[in-house]
């Protein structure tokens, strides 16, 4: 009886994005397979001051949170504006992608994306200065993310 009406069952908020982790150990196919069954989300554009407690409160709205790993500056070991949120079930993570992605936390629009799974070391920023790559090169002034981008600061 059921018929796959592609036009109708759109669930685009849950689709995997174009981003692929360049440090992933495995090929593209393996990474995509993991992304499509993952219960872990990457959360970006956080303020450096956003706490684990705040993240927990917000992301608990789509289901029970298994763990949160706050992203750290590799040098300073302080929060550098991203985190991972792992759920017990895929369904709960999907609801976060549908209803929490693109809304505000600490007055900032946050972005969530599927993650292949936390591995030790991935909690550190990969920018040259220790924070995230995006904070190396950005030109704007963002008081919640250390002010100007690192490149601008050095000049």
């Amino acid at each position, binding site marked *: 009886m059921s018929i796959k009406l592609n*036009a109708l069952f759109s*669930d685009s908020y849950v689709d995997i994005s*174009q981003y692929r982790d360049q440090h992933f150990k495995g090929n593209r196919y393996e990474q995509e397979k993991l992304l499509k069954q993952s219960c872990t989300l990457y959360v970006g554009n956080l303020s450096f001051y956003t706490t*684990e407690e705040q993240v*927990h409160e917000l992301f608990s709205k789509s289901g029970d949170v298994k763990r949160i790993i706050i992203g750290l500056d590799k040098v300073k070991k302080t929060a550098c504006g991203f985190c991972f949120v792992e759920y017990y079930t895929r369904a709960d993570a999907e609801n976060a992608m*549908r209803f929490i992605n693109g809304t505000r936390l600490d*007055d900032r629009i946050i972005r969530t994306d599927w993650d292949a799974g936390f591995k030790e070391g991935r909690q550190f920023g990969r920018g040259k200065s220790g924070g995230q790559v995006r904070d190396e090169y950005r030109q704007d002034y963002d008081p919640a993310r250390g002010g100007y981008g690192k490149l601008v600061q050095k000049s």
Partner: protein
Amino acid sequence: MSRRRHSDESDAGSQPHKRRRTSEPIEIEDRLESLICRVGEKSTSSLESNLEGLAGVLEADLPNYKSKILRILCAVARILPEKLTVYTTLVGLLNARNYNFGGEFVEAMIRQLKETLKSNLYSEALYLVRFLSDLVNCHVIAAPSMVAMFENFVSVTQEEDIPQVRSDWYVYAVLSSLPWVGKELYEKKDVEMDRLLNQIEGYLKRRQKTHVPMLQVWTAEKPHPQEEYLDCLWAQVQKLKKDRWQERHILRPYIAFDSVLCEALQHNLPPFTPPAHSDDAVYPMPHVVFRMFDYTDAPEGPVMPGSHSVERFVIEENLHCIIKSHWRERKTCAAQLLSYPGKNKIPLNYHIVEVIFGELFQLPGPPHIDVMYTALLIELCKLQPGSLPQVLAQATEMMYMRLDTMNTTCIDRLINWFSHHLSNFQFRWSWDDWADCLTQDIEKPKPKFVKEVLEKCMRLSYHQRIVDIVPPSFTALIPANPVCSYKYGDEADSSLPGLAMTTTVGNAIKNRASNEEILIVLKDVPNPNQDDDDDEGDGFNPLKIEVFLQTLLHLAAKSFSHSFSALAKFHEVLKTLTDSDEGKLHILRVLYEFWRNHPQMISVLVDKLIRTQIVDCAAVANWIFSPEMAHDFTRFYVWEILHSTIRKMNKHVQKIQKELDEAKVKLEKQQNKKQRDSGDEEDMEKNSEDEEGQLEEQIERLQEKVESAQSEQKNLFLVIFQRFIMLLTEHLVRCETSGIDINTTWYKNCIERLQQIFLMHHVIIQQYMGTLENLLFTAELDHHILTVYQQFCALHL
């Protein structure tokens, strides 16, 4: 530059390049699907010309793609009810051009209807019935045969020993189709229709309505009564009948094609017998119609149709259908809601807000996850920044004004929604408008609501932020700064028992002592409860728990992660210390004392303690009902903890049940394989026998596990209900003997929390009804308490 296609790494997921051959069958089928699904959407041409064009295309494709077209049309009938009349018109046009196709479509729809009813897909079945009835308007189905089907539906009310929800559904299916087809049926068969309506009226008068109070969002009749859904629909149909079935809201594209359609030959519906009732039939639960607005609330612009007008019914139905179709994609959902056809004649924003809150507050539970509604309202505000936020503010204000009679479960959801919504808009709100709550007792609904909202706002931000956003007059309602309360700190009284030990324990922890080493250190902690001749000191020792846990929590107070790590590291110690029921209760007490200003931390730590099996669910329930927690008994966080605990218990049972089912399936497969492979070499037979034996053992173990888990689950509910009964009975007796009114704020909260247990976990609780009735909810119980149980039973009658 090379014009050769290169395969892009990032394209790995997309389809390989397609050769453009327009006669590919798959492509044509996709095109047909797309054409049919999209008809009725925004277009440069009129709807009529689009329908005309599409009918022509489909007619031409019938010879080769008939079954595909049939399937697509059946599917859109079932899952796109908001476009009902667009598709019935399309089918009408096709029927006019090809009588046989019309007949086949009707047959396919009947088959689909039977299947949806058998599969407990009652809302889809409803859309199919409505579709069929609108096909009468399109001259596809003969009116008398539709009336005959309705007569068969209504005769279900004469069946004996059936759940009321069964006959309810069949009556609802008939009544809810009448806005579309009432006029036509009355024109052709008024005598039969009158008889039908009389029968329905008789049924509605004698049916039970015990369940209604449990489902009402507000207990007050003013300003809008919360009507039972069948009663409301009946009133709407009555009014429609009085207006001689004149209905002007529904978009009817078939009217434009009347000259073509009335030439068509009609089909008779085959006689349709509703499938018999079976024990695994799950009929929809009754509901109450949510109303918060009327024509006085929309200040300018089009007037809101009255509560008993059929227009109101149709608008609400359509808006619910749109949400049902698009809830996963909030931008699309918002856009579809705002482009509702006929929106210029109604105060659409008010309807949308009312329907959304209606779903959010629906009892027992909303049709979709709560956070969806928050996200949807934010999208709507983005799309209509000049008008929707004002309606939303008006709605919020109205709900604040009516908090005194709002169901506690709904207040919970309002608190969650409002705080989350505010966090997306810099917490901007005119708090001063609510200054009236400051003069009330802090336990009253209004100040309590504001307090809980501010607490939730703080969780999404931080304490100082909340201090900054409210006027100084609101200071009493600001949540406590979420810092810990370490009783063994520098200001501790030097005579405090165990104080010296905390330094020893603290140092041991800092020096990375193992679990065994800590236990050895703790041996020196005296037991205040105990006689000297218990040498081992292994019994319950509250002081040990306090010294260790307070010190540990203090060292790990920095964040959730620190605390989780601490609990994990010293799991063994904690398990040893809390080996008894008293131990489990005490660890919760100590945790509460330490983190009493940080309810969020208490919640997450209780969660971890359960998941790591340091405490069991019943211990948490007992703790919540203990005298020490009495002053926090009406706080929202306490009930969040309890419901989270119950949910964990339920998920645990489900998980083991699933493992058992999977093992059984595996065994069956193994046995089938054995049958097929019998006669193979000895080795293989022996191996498969071993495997079978292993599986059987595993199944036995899992069976035991399931039974044990279910027993724990039943016990949890028994504990909770027992405690409620004790507390409530105490209150009722005390009031009776002192001659005071039982309806205190505390009582309203407590009795509605009891209701909430039933509502939030009704599926599971149903399994244990027998035990509950025999052990707890007996006739000797005070009728105030027993009523709650009876209302719950009535939900499934």
